[in-house]
């Protein structure tokens, strides 16, 4: 109990410091507005919103304001994806794909305003649930993570990349792993962290300092979206809205258990390394379908299913920040972009992170969710107008934004060449159904994996048993093996046989 009060007191002082600074409001309003607009525009994603703002605010303003801008955009964009899902039947972000299944039928029935009011409230509550989990669990995990040494760190990085590859791959899991390995391989470029040996620089001095994270983020997330979106397409018919966008309190009371359950699911899925808001939305949607009494209404305009996905994808934000802040492993693709912002500010997330930063992140998330809630209820019609913007007009502007953002982070023209090269590769990978998120997470975690893996062996004089002799590393190794062997047909058959014997 004392621990909880201590946490709340720390949060209170961080919150008061933010609330008493007038600049906070300017950054919050601008970033949440931009985030919702990005989420609402089909073709732009939450990851792209955070990535582009990293180019602008990453290292140009004090860290506090930078975090306000990035977290505000993150919260806003995940919520903003619900607008086109409900009104156009086109998910604004992958995270709100499940929302479209029941949101659009509701809009067709003339209940679009009610659906938007409920998703706004559910997103608000979801963000708060995830934030509360972040406040409580991050400290418990930070205490545990003090005992994490190099072997566990190396295996955790590998586990994060493999898990992200498995869950983010729409086709074969092996393609996700290949994408993760390509990311890890990119991180090997430059001087190695232990002996300062040069690797794969091909005589280009720019590569001596390694592959920069921000151009990779911009290239991997922005350029493929721009190339894919530049094709003649008509803007969809926006469903008409009747009535005011207000939370339906009776429905909220009725579905409170659903909101609570979805919040917990979203936070849990978010806390898994490398797994994003889209997986959280679908998992919660699937669970809702299984346990709900309204199963027959699902897909025809079920409020319960709408709330399941929308609460979970926003709750995922707090969850995704837990592994990022505790272990330095991003919990979702937008969190990977946030990691890039931390890196260019010389903040190293992990067990040694300044506790003040965690409390400020929590306070910013609370403020951002309040701003999102107010904007969602009172300025929703502005965002509905945004839906009518054709992507063939705004994507060229995004390209210019991306270029100047990437240029100004520090690497200049070389960063732009890298961004474009990565962008073309990422577009081809998208075409071939290789997921991009594991590649980016591989680039971010590659340096840590290389250093901690070799340090483990250095300390054990090359004894590989260091990876199984410690309980934490043995568990992680078992999880990695399960992840790799799981999709094999032989392993599946053995599991079925075992199940058959048990029953």
């Amino acid at each position, binding site marked *: 109990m004392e621990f909880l009060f201590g946490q709340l007191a720390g949060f209170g002082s961080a919150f008061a410091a933010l609330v008493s600074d007038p600049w906070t409001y300017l950054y919050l309003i601008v970033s949440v507005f931009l985030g919702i607009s990005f989420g609402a525009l089909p073709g732009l994603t939450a990851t792209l919103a955070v990535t582009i703002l990293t180019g602008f605010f990453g290292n140009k303003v004090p860290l506090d304001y930078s975090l306000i801008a990035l977290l505000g955009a993150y919260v806003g964009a995940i919520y903003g994806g619900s607008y086109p899902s409900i009104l156009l039947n086109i998910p604004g972000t992958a995270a709100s794909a499940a929302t479209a299944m029941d949101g659009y039928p509701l809009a067709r029935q003339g209940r679009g305003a009610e659906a938007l009011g409920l998703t706004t409230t559910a997103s608000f509550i979801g963000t708060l649930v995830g934030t509360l989990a972040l406040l409580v669990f991050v400290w418990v995990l930070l205490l545990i993570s003090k005992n994490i040494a190099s072997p566990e760190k190396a295996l955790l990085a590998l586990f994060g990349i493999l898990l992200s590859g498995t869950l983010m791959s729409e086709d074969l899991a092996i393609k996700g792993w290949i994408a993760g390995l390509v990311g890890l391989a990119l991180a*090997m470029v430059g001087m190695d962290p232990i*002996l300062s040996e040069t690797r794969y620089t091909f005589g280009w001095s720019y590569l001596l300092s390694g592959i920069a994270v921000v151009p990779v983020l911009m290239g991997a997330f922005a350029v493929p979206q721009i190339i894919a979106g530049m094709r003649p397409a008509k803007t969809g018919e926006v469903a008409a809205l009747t009535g005011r966008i207000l939370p339906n309190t009776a429905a909220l009371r009725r579905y409170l258990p659903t909101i609570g359950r979805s919040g917990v699911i979203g936070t849990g899925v978010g806390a898994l390394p490398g797994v994003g808001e889209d997986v959280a939305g679908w998992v919660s949607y699937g669970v809702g379908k299984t346990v709900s009494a309204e199963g027959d209404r699902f897909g025809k305009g079920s409020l319960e299913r709408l709330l399941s996905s929308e609460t979970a994808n926003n709750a995922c934000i707090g969850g995704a920040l837990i592994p990022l802040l505790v272990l330095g492993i991003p919990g979702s693709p937008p969190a990977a972009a946030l990691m890039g912002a931390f890196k260019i500010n010389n903040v190293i997330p992990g067990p040694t992170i300044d506790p003040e930063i965690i409390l400020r992140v929590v306070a910013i998330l609370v403020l951002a969710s309040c701003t999102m809630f107010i904007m969602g209820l009172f300025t929703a019609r502005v965002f509905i107008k945004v839906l009518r913007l054709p992507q063939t007009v705004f*994507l060229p502007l995004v*390209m210019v934004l991306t270029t100047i953002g990437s240029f100004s982070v520090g690497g200049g023209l070389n960063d732009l060449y890298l961004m*474009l090269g990565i962008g073309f590769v990422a577009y081809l990978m998208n075409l071939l159904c290789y997921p991009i998120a594991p590649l980016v997470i591989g680039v971010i975690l590659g340096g840590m994996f*290389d250093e901690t893996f070799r340090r483990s062996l250095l300390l054990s004089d090359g004894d590989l048993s260091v990876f199984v002799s410690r309980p934490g590393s043995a568990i992680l190794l078992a999880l990695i093996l399960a992840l790799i062997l799981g999709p094999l047909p032989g392993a599946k058959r053995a599991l079925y046989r075992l199940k058959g014997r048990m029953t």
Partner: protein
Amino acid sequence: MQVSSEAEAEARAQLRARDFWSALALIALSLFFLWRTLDIPLGGANSAGVNSAAWYTSAAMVPLGLFGALFCLSLVLLGISIRSGGAARALSAAGLGWSGAEIARFSALALMLLAYIAALVPRVDFILASALLITAMIAAFHGRAQPRPLVPLLAMGAAALPALVLYFPRASWGQHGDDWVTLALLVALTLWHQWTGPRGPARRLTPVLAVGVPLLLVCAMAFGFRQNVPNRGGLIFSQIEYGYYVHLRPVWRS
């Protein structure tokens, strides 16, 4: 229902055909980098002044493992593709499922972006270069039943070529000849778009967006965030910067 499952099966078969080629490319890539990794001393060498460097401290160890794993996974993917009939399909052009129109669209966009990043951004005024790119992309792809990227692509190429040929060395990036060429092409392309483009607010707004957005961004970045911006000596930006530091800034500093 049957039609949809047939379409899904067809899409999956096309994907396996593509997997065949991507697996071959990945095998070649991993073999190349495995070969390059052999240049890095693997134990026993005098690395960074450490005579007794062992295999486990070598900078080559992790890359060897990574590219070895990549090679193995690529072989597995190749096996999956062959067993699913991807190899047989891959050898016929129809199996890949890439239409000529899609290849043309991608090539046009890739060339426009390449011209912008590699030729124009370093050498031409950022506002002019970005305005030309925005106009070219909107003119080629917005509101048309079929994209018409040829004229916009030619405009981008005509701006990029003199910039690359006449102003290739860094020392000549500050000269303005290529800026004037880009400006002339921007005006010509804008007129072409206004003449031939589909009617609507987007056509009217294109010149405003094309010039306004880069102008706003570059000024915000240079004077708001005080960051470096591409080609500070460009035709328009150098005038803005001069006006800002000589006329505007002294006003509020005094």
